[in-house]
């Protein structure tokens, strides 16, 4: 048996951790090996000396000092709070709450599509002679979009015709209802360019008329009436761009999507299609909703009282592609009257061209400085109906129509 192995066993043997066979081998080796025997004796004495060490007496006041130490280092309420907050379960719960809240907020934002003032303008003022509106209810009484053909007249609808409108009823839902009822639900009036709650002598009755939680200027209500609140918020920023509240615009968008019959008795929706259309319109992103504006790619802007040269310069800043050089630069003569051939005249007068859809809002804002802007619906042909909408192509064809100067 090699001495190294015997030496390795010595410590275990001192603790009684060596099995009987090894103990026999160790004893047999020690009997015949003087060096290992001496080492074994030294180790045994060493361990005996260590184990004979007298335990040191602890400080006599240890119990008191521990109590004092506990009292002095008692954690503050704030420390306890942070310790509780720092527990893994609490941290996981907090993280989950944040994720849920952020997810819910994001989902709400996805389901609530913003509406631009221009969209409201576009929907409300497709007729050149669109009447001015001062209240949401008035706006709802404005006739729905009339698809104007080449030879169709733009005669205003009779004032006493019954009107059925589609109005927001809370959340993201739209419902078809008589205009009077919509007016009752949405008692809003426009003041200084901002839509606000109509003053009422009886506050409680006023509250009853309001949709739940509807109050302009309160951001928390955006979940209840997102479109109206969005409209009001935008109206505060760009009051001059607002001519109609969003409810009416949505009405028209929905009506168009559903293939509405623009008869005198209001918008007629296919009952089966209405809910899905309303949902789709409410969820559609802005660009997509612009595409529902009668023609997927073309916009005709009627600029009244504007200087043709100025209008051309404004448009030229945004035009990214024109059919011909002449169309972009040339201007021959002002239109003699507003007809369906105005578009061709605008083309030849350099008042038409492709612009980026993203620039559309800015172009409108610039044109509003030059004159009064209204809109004309452009009837799509069968080919146009299959065209890629502006929301996807990123471009829109704009024609600026100049009515004849008043004599």
């Amino acid at each position, binding site marked *: 048996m090699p001495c190294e192995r015997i030496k390795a066993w010595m410590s275990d043997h001192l603790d009684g951790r060596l099995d009987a066979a090894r103990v026999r081998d160790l004893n047999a080796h020690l009997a015949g090996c003087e060096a290992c025997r001496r080492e074994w004796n030294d*180790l045994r004495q060493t361990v005996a000396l260590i184990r004979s060490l007298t335990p040191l007496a602890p400080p006599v006041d240890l*119990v008191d000092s*521990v109590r004092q130490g506990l009292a002095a280092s008692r954690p503050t309420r704030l420390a306890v709070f942070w310790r509780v907050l720092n527990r893994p379960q609490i941290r996981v719960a907090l993280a989950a709450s944040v994720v849920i809240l952020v997810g819910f907020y994001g989902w709400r934002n996805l389901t609530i599509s913003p509406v631009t003032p221009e969209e409201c303008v576009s929907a409300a003022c497709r007729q050149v002679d669109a009447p001015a509106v001062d209240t949401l209810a008035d706006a709802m009484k404005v006739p729905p979009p009339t698809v104007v053909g080449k030879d169709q007249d733009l005669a205003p609808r009779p004032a006493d015709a019954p009107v059925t409108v589609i109005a927001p009823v809370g959340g993201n839902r739209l419902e078809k209802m008589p205009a009077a009822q919509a007016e009752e639900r949405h008692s809003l009036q426009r003041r200084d360019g901002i839509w606000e709650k109509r003053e009422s002598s009886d506050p409680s009755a006023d509250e009853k008329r309001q949709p739940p939680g509807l109050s302009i200027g309160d951001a928390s209500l955006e979940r209840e009436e997102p479109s109206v609140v969005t409209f009001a918020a935008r109206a505060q920023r760009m009051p001059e761009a607002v001519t109609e509240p969003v409810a009416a615009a949505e009405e028209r968008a929905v009506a168009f999507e559903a293939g509405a019959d623009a008869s005198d008795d209001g918008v007629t929706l296919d009952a089966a299609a209405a809910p899905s259309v309303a949902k789709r319109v409410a969820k559609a992103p802005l660009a997509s909703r612009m595409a529902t504006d009668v023609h997927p790619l073309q916009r005709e802007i009627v600029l009244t009282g504007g200087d043709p040269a100025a209008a051309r310069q404004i448009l030229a800043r945004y035009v990214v592609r024109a059919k011909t050089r002449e169309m972009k630069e040339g201007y021959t003569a002002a239109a003699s009257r507003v007809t369906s051939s105005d578009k061709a005249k605008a083309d030849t007068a350099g008042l038409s061209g492709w612009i980026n859809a993203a620039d559309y809002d800015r172009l409108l804002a610039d044109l509003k400085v030059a004159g009064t802007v209204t809109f004309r619906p452009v009837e799509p042909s069968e080919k146009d109906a299959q065209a890629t909408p502006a929301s996807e192509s990123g471009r829109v064809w704009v024609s600026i129509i100049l009515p004849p100067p008043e004599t």
Partner: protein
Amino acid sequence: MSNPREQSQERATEEARVNDLVHKAQEGSMEAVDELVRTYQTPIFNLAYRMVNQREEACDLTQEIFIKVCRAIRSFKGRSRFSTWLQALAINTCRSRRQRLRRIGFFEATSLDAVPEGADAPSPRHEPVDAGDRPETELVRHETQEIVGRAIATLPEDFREVIVMRDIQGLSYEEIAEATGCQTGTVKSRLSRARAKVRDELLREGLLCRVNG
């Protein structure tokens, strides 16, 4: 002299008493905490002293260990013996304290890892003195203990932990392994090498020769 059976019974009784104290301490009894401190203050203080080799530091360290025990006692689930759990907590606190002291150059400044003879020896009034011993015998015993203590103090930290827990505290290999977070084989190996180092130190001091002689 009690036989092994009586010893086993005594150990079981002591174990039950400690468990009862722990249970009461977990329910908030400060009297139970005090009793636990009294029960374990000597082994914990000796462990602390062997780890830092300075009485004042050891007193402070012992206090810190028991404060930690009071704070953490609710987390003791009884999966191991309370003494093993306490030793583990004490060893970890000692390691942290040594690390902190090393950072501020405490050991270099005082050379406490190699305690000079007679320096910072525990106060005689704290040591139980057998009134029947003659002064010369007591002097020799005191000197021998000092040399052995110094030899232990020269050991690396992990060697010192196992030799103190095994040969001074009397813990089993398994308990040492649990307290230090090592394998039993590692404990065996460290213990064997630690004892060999102490033996070499004592041989150099001539203590073993004197004992032999």
